[in-house]
């Protein structure tokens, strides 16, 4: 551009086209696009040729076919080997979601406890938490799954020597037996009341915040919310005369009867994912809390806030801002790591898809389904976390 300023319009044509950054940019992009298109064409061509040679049909029509295999764990849908492939995949997706959500909740709780413990003034607590973090984040999650599955759960006693645990639960090598809740007539009302409680609590919170902004008078929101969310369902149950009964597992001669069983596949996967991810969450929490400047808590103390209020009102909201983005990617990692379920034999999406692939040979379609499901899970999680992040973000001038 500088040369044009000196002698406008005279030597514009003399500059070689190859030295013009704009032209070069277009050239590179065109070349890259050409390479990708040619490569894509080549791959598609090869794939079609290979599929035709192997006489493999394509298309998703096969999903309506009879699956013909059993799935060991299908808590939400009634699935049998006569169901379709599509239903088998759906069961797999639901199982993936189950273990991912359960794992995320547990990992968050353990991670926050350990992360805060690493900042404790207590030397012993600090060291124990450090050992936990350094131990678990340096070991492959797959190994942790095997550790629980073949190291711990497989060598538990057999059903007739089940270990009795608190609250009427039993542990043996077939899994964990818990009492199941049997809903009597009218129990649905409790569910409705529960949802109603959440909505009311939310409204109360909004009203209380508005009032505090206007008049400065605080309102015990937390207590009211707990009372609403727990109290309304209880009230609903009381009206219906408590139509809930527990079905306890009972130790028989050879097996446990009643209750519900959580298989060792789920337990090992769930424990491994939670413990593994918790070590990363702990580090994120620690970095987040340490990332809040010391001046912030000193200023809060200077304003006369007690240490509890300082943590709650000043440190945590600012720390959450640092914690949220890496926390979101840990949640995504946990969801993706749930595909290791295949190692423990838990029928998640990946395991079910693998079985379908072995039965039908539809590798292309199965991989496309994998990509669609995992990518949309990723996108959904990132969208939610981005929304939360934007809500928590610092509003600057």
């Amino acid at each position: 551009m500088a040369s044009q300023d000196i002698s406008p319009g005279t030597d514009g044509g003399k500059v070689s086209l190859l030295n013009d950054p704009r032209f070069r940019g277009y050239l590179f992009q065109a070349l890259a696009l050409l390479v990708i298109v040619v490569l894509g064409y080549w791959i598609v061509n090869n794939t079609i040729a290979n599929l035709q040679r192997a006489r493999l049909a394509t298309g998703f029509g096969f999903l309506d076919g009879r699956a013909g295999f059993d799935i060991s764990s299908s808590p939400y849908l009634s699935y049998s080997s006569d169901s379709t492939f599509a239903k088998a995949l759906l069961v797999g997706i639901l199982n993936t979601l189950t273990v991912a959500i359960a794992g995320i909740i547990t990992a968050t709780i353990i991670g926050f406890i350990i992360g805060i413990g690493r900042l404790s003034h207590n030397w012993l607590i600090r060291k124990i938490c450090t050992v936990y973090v350094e131990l678990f984040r340096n070991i492959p999650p797959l190994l942790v799954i095997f550790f629980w599955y073949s190291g711990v759960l497989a060598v538990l006693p057999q059903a007739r020597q089940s270990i009795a645990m608190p609250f009427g639960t039993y542990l043996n090598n077939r899994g964990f037996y818990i009492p199941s809740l049997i809903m009597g007539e009218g129990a649905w009302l409790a569910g409705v009341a529960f949802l109603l409680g959440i909505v009311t609590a939310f409204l109360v919170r909004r009203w209380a915040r508005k009032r505090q902004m206007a008049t400065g008078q605080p309102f015990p929101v937390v207590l009211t919310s707990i009372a609403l969310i727990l109290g309304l369902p209880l009230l609903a149950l009381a009206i219906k005369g408590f139509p809930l009964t527990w079905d306890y597992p009972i130790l028989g001669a050879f097996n446990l009867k009643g209750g519900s069983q959580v298989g060792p596949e789920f337990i090992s996967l769930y424990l491994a994912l939670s413990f593994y991810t918790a070590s990363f969450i702990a580090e994120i929490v620690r970095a987040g809390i340490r990332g809040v400047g010391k001046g912030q808590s000193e200023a809060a103390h200077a304003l006369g806030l007690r240490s509890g209020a300082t943590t709650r009102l000043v440190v945590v909201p600012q720390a959450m801002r640092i914690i949220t983005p890496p926390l979101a990617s840990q949640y995504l990692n946990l969801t993706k790591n749930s595909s290791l379920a295949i190692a423990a034999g838990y029928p998640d999406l990946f395991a079910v898809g693998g079985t379908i692939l072995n039965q039908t040979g539809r590798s292309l379609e199965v991989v496309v389904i994998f990509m669609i499901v995992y990518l949309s899970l990723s996108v959904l999680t990132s969208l939610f976390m981005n929304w939360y992040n934007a809500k928590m973000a610092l509003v600057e001038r």
Partner: protein
Amino acid sequence: MTDTNISFVRQEMLQGQTPPLGERGIVRWVRINLLATPIDAVLTILALLALAWFLPPLINWLFIQASWVGPDRSVCATVAQGGLQPDGWSGACWAFVNAKFSQFMYGPYPIDQLWRVNLVGIMFVALLVPLLMPKAPYKIPNAIVFFFVFPIIAFFLLVGGWFGLPYVETSVWGGLLVTLVISFVGISVSLPLGIALALGRRSKMPVIKMLCVIFIEMVRGIPLVTVLFMASYMLPLFLPPGVSFDKFLRALIGVALFASAYMAEVVRGGLQAIPKGQYEGADSLGLGYWQKTGLIILPQALKLVIPGIVNTFIGLFKDTSLVSIISMFDLLGTVRQHFNDPNWASPQTPISGLVFAGFIFWIFCFGMSRYSIFMENRLDTGHKR
């Protein structure tokens, strides 16, 4: 004015006294670190109780009751299970690890050819250690040899088939050898590829940028097992009939592509953290794009993200264990394969093998993370904000 009596004023200095017992030595340390507040005291007691409940059985299992040597499963099983140990015995079966050690390291690699693996291992350590030591000279020649010459020599030595060495196909590789080969290739491919992808993503050319974004986000959105699965089932479909690759190579491609997408995001973080003034300063000096990137931007950006890069390396190293899902035998896969050996099957065998494999993985990962902390401190030029 009256005569003042100053006889009560001390004439000589007092000797300094030692601080009270509660303010020095171990008592002070315990008071501050363990018993500062009532809650701290309760926590300490709870933690001590937990340790007292947890540690003695663990040490007992790991060392005291463990059986260290033995010819077969009898040393690791109780009488009721058909072994020699008294009933109720529970201890680690290190005899199993001892007997299978060579398998865990090399897999079924031919025993008379093991010197080749060992030679590669010695060369690897001999080249890596001076590269890692900041004081050692000849960094650049060393790095060139390590990243360009060594892989070629290692390839010919491990695979063979040339220079009179018998050909060893990759299906008989196993154990730690596979883990290390996959991680080394993954690390040395993913770093340059990741940098290229990150630069592409920050590029002003929309097509290049879009291609990089699509690749990075696609790969980051799916689990590694799916990528490995694709590499082992789909790659053969994509290639012209008749062309086929080694299964090991397919896994290598999968791992390297996967890791480079993550590396790209780490490097992008570093690129974004470089102040705009650095770019403008480089432009004003008349540097072209590659000079600007290579001399000004990347050295600073990479230094900033060393912890992230090493974390990706650690993640990659741990992820190599997933190749056992597409039935290749890395360290973890080999250990699991040997659980089923009827000569050694006992209730204690799986857990002992897994603890051993975990220990090996842990040493490598922990070593890498410590080294990254060391480098971070060393490279810290005090410009951090």
